[in-house]
């Protein structure tokens, strides 16, 4: 079996996401809570990283900082080689919309829009002309195998189809970074695994992804698992060998 590809070759030299010594403290004076403490993390194009840790370990803070929804108290965040902190607000928001896609726990599809309109929405909000946005939306739906559902509304889709549309919306256009917080929500374990497989497939097409989850079975879909505890990175897995070693060696058959 082939290893996951490195995806598009552009962006290989530069990490899509880079956290350097990132700390985040909430509150003031004596009543401060340190949510993150000196976190270093680099995610390349084509790579899927899962972040695990007990509740309160800083997983969600890491994701909001990676998505530049919040600035770190200390340290640097680079998205596609650019520092977003300190950018004028409008420019920062535009860049965020163009580069970063989000997958939410409950998929958050807008009920009044068709699958194609939902998938194209981020581009339309960004001022991309409607025909162009719709074409990109359709392409994203096709990549996730739900092109034939383009004209349906969310309540006419199965749970699995809704997941696919939500992921299509997150990667629509040329988004480079996918951020997902417990993306498989309340799905059963087979469907939850399917969400992770789709995210991993998106990475094989060149996207970088950071997925926060407390579930080891879901985290295991990632190329690398990072462990957080009390805001610190306490360990990570290395890229595991291929799965061949788990099967009976061919030559003994």
């Amino acid at each position, binding site marked *: *079996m082939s290893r996951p590809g490195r995806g598009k070759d552009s962006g290989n030299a530069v990490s899509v996401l880079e956290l350097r010594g990132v700390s985040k403290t909430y509150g003031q004076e004596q009543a401060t809570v340190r949510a993150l403490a000196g976190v270093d993390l680099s995610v390349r194009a084509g790579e899927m990283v899962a972040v695990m840790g007990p509740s309160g370990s800083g997983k969600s803070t890491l994701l909001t900082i990676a998505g530049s929804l919040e600035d770190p108290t200390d340290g640097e965040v680079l998205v596609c080689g650019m520092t977003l902190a300190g950018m004028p607000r409008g420019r920062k928001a535009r860049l965020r919309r163009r580069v970063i896609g989000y997958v939410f726990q409950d998929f958050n599809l807008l009920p009044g829009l068709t699958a194609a309109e939902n998938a194209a929405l981020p581009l339309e909000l960004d001022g991309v002309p409607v025909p162009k946005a719709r074409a990109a939306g359709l392409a994203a739906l096709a990549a996730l195998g739900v092109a034939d559902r383009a004209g349906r509304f969310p309540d006419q889709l199965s749970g699995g189809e809704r997941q696919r549309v939500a992921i299509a919306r997150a990667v629509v256009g040329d988004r480079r970074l996918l951020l997902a917080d417990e993306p498989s929500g309340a799905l059963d374990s087979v469907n939850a695994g399917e969400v992770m497989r789709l995210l991993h497939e998106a990475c094989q097409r060149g996207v970088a992804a950071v997925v926060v989850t407390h579930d080891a079975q879901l985290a295991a879909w990632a190329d690398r*698992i990072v462990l957080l505890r009390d805001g610190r990175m306490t360990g*990570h897995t290395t890229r*595991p060998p291929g799965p061949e070693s788990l099967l009976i060696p061919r030559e003994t*058959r």
Partner: protein
Amino acid sequence: MSVPHVLLALLSQGPKYGLQLREEFEAGTGEVWPLNVGQVYKTLGRLERDGLAESDGTGQDGPQKRFRITPRGEEALAAWLRTPPDLTSPPRDELVMKVLVAARVPGTDAHEVVQAHRVYLLELMQQWTRLKEGEARDDLSLALVVDAELFRLDAVIRWLDAAEVRLARAAAEPPRPASAPVPVPQLRRLGARR
């Protein structure tokens, strides 16, 4: 051991040769449990002796012999499928032992021990998941085996999480005086089944 009954299950589909049984055993169980030919013939011999299977009456041993299941074999197979495995006494798990004694070894950080095992187990789960993503997508047997293994490893990781919380709590609280011994007869009775 399940090998005799898995062979009976394969024979319940129709008569088969030894080599064929071995191939089908491995294919039908996700190709993760190797089975050598000698073991197949030894097991078939035992099934024949116990009247659960019979062979063509050619008399000669080896690959020419074809086996079929007997009515008694079918009964034994049906009974085995519905008999729960013995899960009453906890297995003497190596990892559990390591974490239990880690806290007693001077100069050893139990949390570090737990973390090392957690990372190893996660890497193993990543490997199984790659199988699920690849080969197991078109192989139901393998998909079932992979799921079983992932759930098992997941349970061990959850136990490590719980163990870490208990160890941290125990380290933060002074040990309770030994004046109130915890009654153990209930536990003993459970363990005595071994």
